[in-house]
């Protein structure tokens, strides 16, 4: 059970609440109550809302607050305070009397007119908003363009500064070069002198070269003579070789012939000996040792 904390109305008092007259809550299941905490007085799924609001249960709730004979829910209500019955009734009368209803209707009518005026004003404002929007769009665009230009300007300034720094550096470099120039001029003069000397030397070399070329041509001529002589010698050599080969080929034959001759000489010696021996015996000559 939930606990609530409040102050209970005393004698002549009631709950300071006009909710039963002017408040409705339709729950998600269709139940209708006349405040957040009170009992259900009907259900819109079964009964139209206007009838629910005029139901006996609803009237009983109003009656209870009107008279101060509160039901348990109203007694323990933690939301509203306490008022005298007379004060509460005066407020209810103001809220529900026909005059009040007429006033309310009049006010609603006035509110309706004011809402129409407001609606017109809102339309006008919307139109102005469109205009403002276009201007703002243009402003944004110009702002972006200005930002781009400023960015570009900043970039150019930076570039200019870089160029100036480079210029200063180049000026310094030029000074250094100017200082270096006389020295370089002397060096160039030296180089030109050296160049002239080298040209003279080159001429000498060319002349020498021409002499050498003549000598070379004579040498070439000599070489050609020598080559021809060599060729003749080679031809002669080849002839000698041929002759030598013929001699070589003849040598075995001659060797055979020599051997034959030698055998023949040996035979002749043998025959001679043979003829000498009888003679020697006859002569009494000993055989020579």
């Amino acid at each position: 059970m939930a606990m609530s904390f409040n102050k209970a109305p005393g004698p002549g008092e009631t709950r300071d609440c006009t909710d039963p007259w002017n408040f409705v809550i339709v729950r998600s299941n269709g139940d209708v109550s006349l405040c957040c905490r009170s009992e259900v007085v009907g259900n819109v799924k079964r009964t139209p809302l206007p009838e629910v609001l005029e139901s006996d249960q609803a009237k009983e709730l109003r009656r209870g607050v009107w008279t101060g004979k509160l039901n348990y829910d109203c007694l323990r209500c933690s939301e509203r305070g306490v008022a005298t019955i007379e004060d509460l009734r005066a407020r209810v009368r103001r809220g529900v009397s026909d005059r009040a209803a007429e006033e309310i209707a009049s006010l609603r009518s006035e509110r309706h007119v004011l809402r129409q005026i407001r609606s017109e004003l809102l339309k006008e404002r919307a139109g102005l908003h469109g205009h403002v929007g276009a201007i703002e769009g243009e402003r944004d665009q110009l702002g972006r363009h200005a930002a781009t230009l400023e960015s570009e300007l900043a970039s150019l300034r930076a570039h200019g500064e870089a160029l100036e720094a480079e210029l200063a550096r180049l000026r310094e470099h030029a000074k250094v070069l100017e200082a270096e120039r006389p020295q370089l001029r002397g060096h160039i003069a030296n180089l030109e002198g050296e160049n002239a000397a080298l040209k003279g030397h080159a001429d000498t070399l060319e002349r020498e070269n021409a002499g050498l070329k003549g000598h070379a041509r004579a040498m070439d001529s000599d070489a050609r003579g020598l080559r021809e002589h060599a060729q003749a010698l080679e031809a002669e050599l080849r002839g000698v070789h041929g002759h030598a080969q013929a001699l070589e080929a003849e040598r075995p034959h001659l060797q055979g012939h020599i051997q034959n001759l030698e055998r023949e000489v040996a035979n002749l010696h043998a025959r001679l000996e043979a003829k000498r021996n009888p003679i020697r015996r006859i002569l009494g000559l000993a055989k020579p040792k």
Partner: protein
Amino acid sequence: MTSEVDEIPPEMLRARPRTIYVEMTSRCNLLCTYCPVSQPDYKGEDLLMEPEALADVLLRAQPDEVQLSGHGETTMLRDWTRVARLLLARGLPVTITSNFAKRFNDEEIDTLARFRAVKISVDTTDADLQFQLRRGLKLDKLTDNLDRLVAHCESNFIEKPFLHISCTITHLNMPLVPDLVRWTHARKAHALALVNLVRHPDVEGAVKILHPSEVDPQGALRAIEDAQRIADELGVRFDMEPGLVDSLEVGQTWQ
């Protein structure tokens, strides 16, 4: 003897509905410790009513305010903006109470911007305590939604809805109410209202809450006094349910 009941003129029993609450859903995306939604036997459901039919019913009553709220969180319904825009298009003065727990998309922010009033439940500026009390609510997300709503109104020249911060008082957040007034001002909201606690049975696993009158009623009254002074200085409207002050001054408990 004539009873007081008999003295009631019949016309005094007639209804003159000014404010109609329509509970689009009784389901919620939070489980606040002090809310009946947190009770174990609580069951929520969605209102099954065609928006056109709902608009017809409401228009007949000509209310000054149609509040699309109840126990549940309307903005967790998928097509809540469609219903709201239909009612707005029919000229009904729509308001809402929301926990601002989920991050709203641009279309939802624009819909909220068209409302007559938006009441946002914020109990404290202490994010950790807020998370404990509301069980799941992240203060930075809520703040972001609120800031976006205000910025949307300002950038689109829409008249800002009346922004009402609603704070349910417990013994834990009571001392921090003056800070909440400053927060309300910083967020460009118009008013801060203190809601008297109805203490339901303790919820298992949740931080235990007590009514300030059970702990330190005098300290609570001092905090309210400070908050009122700061609100006056900053130009913030400061409301409280009369039952809250009564309970702190007199201290009557009902079960």
